[in-house]
């Protein structure tokens, strides 16, 4: 009987120790990953509340002086405002286009064509955005398109796949039978959309919009080419400071403001998920 059993028999003490070590190593890696990913963000938030003139870690004392300076520096506040305006417009346009695209895909009877178009709509997600920015700059110059308008369009393109992903997932989960029921009750397509589809897919629409907004507000690579003096988004303004004027703490405050906006939006998305999941 024992000749059949060739499985390594456990040596209790030694095996236990090794298992504990392996488990500890995995815990360590997970903890380290979180620290590496979140650490830099937390450092910035922390030092933005510093009272000192120059970067010092840990800050000697806490204050809000860099925030008050941020809100009284016109170049920074106008950049924040522009970022918000562009994000608002770009996210709305991207959501609308993504909704149309998703509805078109749900109706296509051909799975092959549908898969191809899905790849097209998701393409800007993996396409190197720096090349897109460069292409758009050249294109706008040649076609004579205003760069302000062009910047919004660029953000729409970059944000579109994020909105599309959220919306198509929601639409795919939507029971097509409900649209048929509405039709059988006399609702033409647009009224069916308004009374039945939209009230049921709003969580997907809203989180798609927020994703698009977040992407736009942090967008760097296309904005790099399409902004200019006096016409800059906040991330590009921050980049300019970091590159040419050194890391002043007012930039930490600017970053913390951005992070704060993201926290609010991120929490909103999570609570939508939670409400919709109930």
């Amino acid at each position, binding site marked *: 009987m024992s000749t059949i059993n060739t499985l390594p028999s456990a040596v209790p003490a030694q095996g236990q120790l090794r298992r504990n070590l392996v488990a500890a190593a995995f815990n360590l890696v997970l903890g380290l990953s979180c620290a590496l990913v979140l650490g*830099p963000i937390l450092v910035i938030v922390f030092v933005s509340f510093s009272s000192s003139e120059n970067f010092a870690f840990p800050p000697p004392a806490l204050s809000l002086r860099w925030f008050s300076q941020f809100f009284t520096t016109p170049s920074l506040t106008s950049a924040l405002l522009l970022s918000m305006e562009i994000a608002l417009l770009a996210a709305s346009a991207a959501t609308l286009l993504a909704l*149309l695209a998703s509805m078109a895909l749900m109706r296509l009877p051909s799975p092959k064509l549908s898969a191809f178009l899905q790849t097209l709509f998701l393409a800007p997600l993996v396409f190197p955005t720096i*090349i897109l920015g460069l292409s758009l700059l050249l294109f706008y110059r040649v076609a004579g398109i205003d760069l302000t308008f062009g910047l919004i369009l660029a953000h729409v393109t970059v944000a579109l796949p994020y909105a599309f992903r959220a919306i198509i997932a929601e639409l795919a989960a939507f029971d097509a039978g409900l649209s048929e029921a509405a039709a059988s009750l006399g609702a033409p397509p647009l009224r069916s959309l308004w009374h039945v589809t939209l009230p049921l897919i709003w969580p997907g629409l809203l989180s798609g919009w927020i994703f698009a907004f977040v992407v736009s507000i942090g967008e*760097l690579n296309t904005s790099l*080419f399409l902004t200019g003096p006096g016409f800059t988004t906040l991330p590009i303004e921050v*980049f300019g400071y970091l590159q040419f004027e050194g890391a002043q703490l007012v930039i930490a405050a600017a970053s913390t403001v951005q992070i704060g906006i993201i*926290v609010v939006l991120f929490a909103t998305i999570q609570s939508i998920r939670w409400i919709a999941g109930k």
Partner: protein
Amino acid sequence: MKKPIPIKDRSDLRAYRQAALLGAPPIAYLLVFFALPILYLFVAGLKTPDPTAFIGADWTFANYTDILSDGYYLGVIVRTLGSGLGIVLIALIIGYAAAYKMESLKPQTRTWFLLLFLFPLMVSNVVRAYGWMAILGRTGVLNTSLRAVGYDGPPLRILFSMEAVVIGLMTILLPYMVISVLNALNTIDRRYREAAASLGASPWRTFWHITLPLSAPGVLTGTLLVFLLTLSAYITVSLLGGPRFKLLVSLVFDAVQTFQWAKASVLSFILLALALGVSVILILALRPAGAGGRSK
């Protein structure tokens, strides 16, 4: 034997018509503001440079041959590939281990960790790179901390080096790897592992023969995302690498700054070719074994 039946009938036609009507705006938008400009940029690289116009008049391959025969550019291409693949490899090892650990956690705890990894992705990369500047700089968190624990040598000079770029980009992109791998691990039926264990496989062998192959799609997604994003991370490279550390993306940017459109185009499309080439290799290498016979 009976009346021939047309292949596409009218319900299909109606569906196609509706889809075309709905799909026209987004498709047109992407063609005009995505595909067309990129195509135009490509053409610009195939024309003789003309300082008075965006795009030259005569067709030529000289822009490509000039750059591809220049040792400096080849060196940058190799450095771009090398740092990209290095970042992918480190992210894969750390990210896989982290995802593997997360998968074993209770769903509630796992969700919290997932949120911890999702949140940084929404924060602008310039802020995250700034964070690393603050940590790695001469008076940064790292050097201050070292001093506080009694180290009194010269301050570490990590910022403005390839190491800083690798650390920064790796951590900025790590969440993509963790999330992709975690998604794949989540879809693996627990019973496969239990079956392997019941057949006498040790945890390590179960991992090697069952879990790892079945998570290949997640590994593929993660490596692809991380590699592609390293290629266009101009701002991170420029902030953490400093003015003298150049990757391909920096050269693209420099060419635009000096209005060398043809050169910018050529460098861009070399970058795209790298992206495409590495993607194809990764896809071929990591395609799940069982998927060979499956149609697309």
